[in-house]
């Protein structure tokens, strides 16, 4: 069924991704690598789409010009084939993500059946089906790499974990926000921290070097993105008491404080989950709501499989996500917009609180158990 859904007419960003792949293919075939500056930060994902696009150009069909004008909601066979081919990498990432979630859950619970349930919870989630197989959300690829990094981390392969997170950060910026949180998972084991940080920094440094090698213009282009694309500032959230006090930063710093101060020996998955969820709860409706919720989707799936008392919070979050404007595949009357947005943000906030309470209770339980143990030990003396 998922395979068939990949043949839906393209809309949204999928056509933009086709354009990026076309530019990069031209750059490679003509040897004019300075064209890489045109897609800028989108070039990383564009390279991953090159094989799909190249195959499409080799098909014995009439190739329409790439662009919204000719392709938006077009049902012609060449366009449907392009949409299908571009979705193949994310189709693979979708399966890969399911396997990774399954592995993490199996390892943490010691139960293969729970791992299989986790796979299904991811793979059959209507939200994921819509955004991956119909819309063609390319963020699935960096999210899959990010989850691979977490999976490696849960198996204490910290260098490779750092590498994966860095590669994900090159493709999409969100793993950078999780970095300080993940450092709290090391429980004072310095050698692991060093391995992780080296793994994280090396690819980023190489990517930075590559950007500079294409000319300072590329770097300036990337730095200037926020001033050109104002919607990116939506990720910072609302200004609070003055224009410099941004809700996203405030929530992230507060979450970091709560995690550091009140969580006891936190694990990798809850750490990554709260960091991404805090980011998406504070970001304004445009920036943090549409396909970007796919960043949090595998984390929420993993988290709920590890903590069943998050079940209703998780269900509520995904239901409200599916109903939220822009995200909802079925357009709802405009008068309901504020209600559905509000419900979605409230659900994310509720989930964030839920995870925090779980972790703080764990701390309280550990503390109580220690006290009880001491009392028992004392009474035996």
């Amino acid at each position, binding site marked *: 069924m998922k395979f068939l859904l990949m043949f839906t007419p393209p809309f949204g960003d999928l056509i933009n991704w086709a354009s990026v792949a076309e530019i990069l293919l031209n750059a490679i075939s003509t040897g004019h690598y300075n064209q890489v500056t045109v897609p800028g930060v989108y070039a990383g994902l564009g390279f991953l789409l090159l094989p799909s696009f190249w195959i499409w150009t080799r098909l014995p069909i009439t190739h329409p010009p790439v662009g919204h004008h000719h392709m938006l909601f077009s049902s012609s066979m060449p366009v449907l084939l392009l949409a299908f081919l571009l979705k193949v990498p994310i189709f693979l990432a979708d399966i890969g993500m399911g396997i990774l979630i399954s592995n993490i859950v199996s390892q943490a619970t010691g139960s293969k059946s729970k791992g299989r349930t986790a796979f299904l919870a991811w793979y059959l989630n209507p939200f994921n089906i819509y955004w991956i197989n119909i819309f063609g959300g390319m963020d699935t690829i960096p999210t899959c790499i990010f989850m691979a990094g977490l999976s490696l981390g849960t198996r204490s392969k910290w260098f490779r974990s750092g590498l994966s997170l860095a590669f994900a950060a090159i493709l999409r910026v969100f793993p950078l926000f999780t970095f300080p949180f993940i450092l709290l998972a090391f429980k004072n084991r310095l050698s692991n921290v060093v391995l992780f940080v080296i793994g994280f920094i090396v690819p980023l440094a190489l990517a930075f070097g590559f950007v500079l090698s294409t000319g300072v213009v590329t770097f300036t282009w990337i*730095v200037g993105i*926020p*001033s050109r694309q104002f919607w990116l500032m939506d990720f910072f959230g609302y200004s609070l008491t*003055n224009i410099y*006090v*941004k809700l996203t*930063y*405030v929530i992230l*710093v507060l979450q970091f*404080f709560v995690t550091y101060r009140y969580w006891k020996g936190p694990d990798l998955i809850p750490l990554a989950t709260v960091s991404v969820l805090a980011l998406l709860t504070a970001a304004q409706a445009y920036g943090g709501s549409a396909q970007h919720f796919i960043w949090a989707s595998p984390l929420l799936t993993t988290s709920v499989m590890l903590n069943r008392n998050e079940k209703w919070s998780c269900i509520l979050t995904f239901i409200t996500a599916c109903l939220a404007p822009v995200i909802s595949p079925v357009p709802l009357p405009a008068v309901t917009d504020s209600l559905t947005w509000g419900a979605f943000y409230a659900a994310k906030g509720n989930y964030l609180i839920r995870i925090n309470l779980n972790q703080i209770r764990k701390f309280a339980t550990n503390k109580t158990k220690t006290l009880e143990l001491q009392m028992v030990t004392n009474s035996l003396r």
Partner: protein
Amino acid sequence: MSGRLSGLIENQNAFILLFAVISAVKVVLSGIAPASFEMKDIVTLIQSGNVSIGPWIALYPALYNHTSNATLVAQWLLAAPGQTNTNLQMTSLSVRLPLFILDLASSIALYYTGRTLGSVTTGKLTALIWFANPYALFGIELLGVPDVLAVFLLVASIAMLVRKRPLLSSIFLGLGVWVKFFPILLVPALLLYEHRSKAPRKNSIATVLLSLAGLAAYLQWTTPSWRVYLTAYSPVGQPFPFVAGETAINNSAFVLILFYCLMIFFAKNTKNLVTLLLPSFLVYYAVSNPSPQYLIWVAPLMALDVATANRSRAWLLPIFYGLAFTNWFFSSSAFLTPSGYSLLMFPLGGDNLPSFSLAVTRLLDNSIIVNMLLPLVSSALYACFLAYAIDTALTWLR
């Protein structure tokens, strides 16, 4: 490290020597640091003559007396740091010396408060945390604003309260409100503390009446434009959004009132004065837009908190003031003064700037700093207000 510090504090001679060294640094800097824009504002206010001037003006006899010698004051306002003119250095010192004395007096009052709440060592630690705080040096001596007068009156009020002198405490509180308004934010917490510690009702009545008297006196000296003084402009420059609110429901008033209600509900068993007072200021900061020097108000309470209530929060204090300092640095163009120099005493304007100054000016103009780093620092400071308030308020539940 903590062993060395406690050794230093416990050794009477070493402690006094340390205080003397810090005092010497403060006095020397008071003599050579350039005048700030805030000091220029004070001079302008005095010279204008027809604007309400608060009781805090008593702190600046040097400026008052120098109005006859306007040339010297004008020269001092524009003088570069470290200039060799002794007259200018003495002018600078004479303007800042009363502020230093109040700074020192506050640390003495904190010592006695800490000693009463804990031990002699606690008292010394409290005084040291306040007196050695570089942020307080910037906000008091170098910036030259009169907040330290109200801070001293507040600390004296707390000292009197813990030493069971409620009437004197209320008098100092009322005086503090008269000078700078902000101590009135602590009245609900003080009343709650008096109630919890089963103090006679007359103490609470005295606190309320004298605070109201202080408020009336404050409004009197800011009349006829008290509303503007409280909001857009004042010699103490305090934007109080809950007074300035233009909409039917003012967010700041709403949050502060909610906070006081929560405090009454949840702080039922708390008899710790500091943990009641401290969050009141922090919540106020979080719902207002405080000028950098306002963060000095909370410094004595933080010192008392770390020394007497909870050492495990000590790490938050340097983070709080580190963020506040960085935020202040960027938002004030590296502490620019009328002389064209920074309060950190390097040039920021004019020809032939040294490479360091050029680097700083480029840094201030950098779009990444303005668009990314400054919001991060400001937001982290804001989060720090809330984090500190939450951590302190959680002790109510124990």
